[in-house]
């Protein structure tokens, strides 16, 4: 689907071509020496996944892409198998197990997580990709396990939600973040852990096997029923807020580009499409996809009887970020 074609709409930049680096980056940014030099034909990757929520389906696509690259993939899923598999992405895990992916359910936050993982999979992992924890307490046992067993690379899926609101956008890595946010504590913990870590901050993600498809459904539901598409905010220039909608395949591919890549070491990346779109723009694009019209109407969020986020899928502000660093350092498109 991906009407906002992931990445490739390009800056017309010379970081082009099909070369998605399969081996460690040869460009070493200032100050980075040594580290991984082996070519990773096959890494043993552990994905710690959520059972539901906005990020959960990243794990599914990540597993698929890693397997396609020839890596050995295991998924340690939070939640209980019976409940989790009632809906996507876990409902579709059969696709993955067919390809040789091992799946086990358990509690990634347990102090015994190391033993649980050993028991479930019985193998040594080169890479751990943590796509579940939202706080330092939750991730701490996994970090201990990683440092204790000499895991070579630790990738974490964070969130752009931690950035402080600003008049100046796009948000860039290095911009002020909300110190109270759980993911900020996680990033700090990883930084001090000594692990070869990278953190990836996404915004809104769409695509197949989503656990939560509210973002675009909000627009589609109203358009096909010929109901007004209500957008929060100003009556003048309604729906002017600019946001970022990224295809899950592109989110997964950035993490895959980072696996075995020296340039990713101890870096934080925004994992978002380099193209941003207004709320009204989203409405128009959804309408175009259905072949119908969008009737855009503004409303004042203060007049809602529920919290805005329970009603409308996007933040009532500009909310988008710059993935330039990942494009340069990882060759991501």
């Amino acid at each position, binding site marked *: 689907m991906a009407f906002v074609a992931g990445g490739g*709409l390009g800056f*017309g930049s010379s970081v082009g071509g099909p070369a998605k680096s399969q081996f460690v980056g040869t460009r070493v940014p200032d100050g980075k020496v040594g580290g991984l030099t082996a070519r990773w034909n096959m890494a043993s990757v552990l994905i710690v996944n959520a059972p539901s929520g906005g990020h959960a389906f990243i794990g599914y696509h990540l597993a698929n892409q890693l397997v396609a690259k020839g890596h050995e993939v295991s998924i340690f899923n939070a939640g209980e198998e019976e409940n989790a598999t009632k809906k996507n992405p876990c409902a579709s895990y059969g696709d993955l197990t067919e390809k040789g992916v091992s799946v086990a359910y358990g509690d990634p936050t347990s102090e015994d997580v190391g033993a649980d993982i050993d028991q479930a999979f019985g193998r040594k992992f080169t890479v751990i990709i943590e796509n579940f924890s939202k706080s330092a307490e939750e991730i701490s046992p996994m970090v201990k396990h990683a440092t204790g067993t000499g895991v070579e690379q630790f990738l974490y899926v964070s969130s752009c939600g931690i950035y402080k609101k600003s008049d100046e956008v*796009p948000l860039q890595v290095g911009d002020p973040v909300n110190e109270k946010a759980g993911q900020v504590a996680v990033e700090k913990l990883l930084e001090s852990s000594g692990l070869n870590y990278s953190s990836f901050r996404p915004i809104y993600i769409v695509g197949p096997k989503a656990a939560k498809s509210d973002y675009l459904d909000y627009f589609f539901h109203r358009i096909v029923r010929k109901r007004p598409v209500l957008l929060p905010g100003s009556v003048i220039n309604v729906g002017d807020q600019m946001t970022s909608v990224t295809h899950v395949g592109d989110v997964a591919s950035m993490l895959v580009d980072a696996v075995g890549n020296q340039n990713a070491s101890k870096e934080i990346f925004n994992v978002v499409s380099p193209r941003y*779109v207004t709320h009204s723009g989203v409405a128009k694009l959804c309408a175009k996809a259905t072949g119908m019209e969008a009737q855009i109407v503004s409303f004042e969020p203060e007049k809602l009887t529920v919290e805005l986020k329970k009603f409308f899928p996007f933040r009532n502000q500009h909310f988008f970020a710059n993935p*330039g660093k990942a494009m340069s350092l990882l060759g991501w498109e």
Partner: protein
Amino acid sequence: MDLGFVGSSFGVSSPRRVGRCRQQQVVMMAEGSPKRVLVIGGTRFSGLYLTKVLADSGHDVVLFNRGNTPVGDKSLMVPGETEEEFEARNARTSTIIGDRTDGDDMVAKLKDEEFDAIYDNNGRELDDSKPLIDLYKGRVEHYVYMSSAGVYLKSDIMPHCEPDATDPKSRHKGKLHTEAYLIEQEIPFTSIRPTYIYGALNYNPLEQWFFERIAAGRPVPVPGSGLNLTGLGHVQDLAKAMAAVLGNEKAIGQVYNIQDEKAITFDGIVRACAQAAGKDPASVEIVHYDPKDFDFGKKKAFPMRPQHFFTSPQKALTDLDWSIEFNTEVGLKDSYENDFVIKEKNGKLKNDFSTDDMVLSEMGVAV
């Protein structure tokens, strides 16, 4: 020294650095041999800063203009530049007198001159540049053309990137025609598309518009929701980018957007200008209005177009040995302290609040 910024040749968008203050500007000698460079439109704002960067780098700069401001005129000093620096670069700068809007005169004056590179900074229509392009086809290593981000077609999707659709009906279509001609003539060129250029010596009352209202303690009328995003680019960064194009093979045949990596909202500019002027941003009243409800006649009620309008400079950051040194905070402070306060003291401000008063009275806001 600048080495801390060299990392950006990898195109890494580094955490926003505060620009260096002007006093620390370092004179860098050009890599390779000095070039003989023609600059048309080199005595005002971006052309002036460019001339300085080129001459400081050791190139021989030949200006072409009508001679109203001869080399050495004090008005050509850039804020923060010392007398010594000024004199040193003037020794490498000369003027050929002529009128670029008169193609025959321009050709007559320049035909026997050889240049390594040409900077065509003030061409508006193809007719302005065509005689020059025809004259120097096959005779010049690099023809650098000052275009504009104004050529991009309005869109809900941002940022504008170099391959994006342009608007054949745009006010800046002359730039498009010229770009097309450069491509057609197969002359080695680079085209530069800045968004809104700002900084000390700006002849366009852009940031000045905001400073005037803030200094006067007046409410600031902002069209739309105040959320429109616009792209500011400091003139010094633009000059450095344009100079960085010289001798760079990758830049041949390319178009580059040049502006800050960040866009800023209209309301954000008000706050940032208040900050630069030493005032509490929260103390400045912003009044939003729908411009469609007003007829301002020929007057411009606001210095920027009321739409989302910004580009990504990622391509330039990747291809060129260039980094952005001025963020909004530092850039606006430069403009305020090195330009606005001087104009204010000399009574040179426009202070035309007629359209403001129209809006404010309609919106029931007291001044």
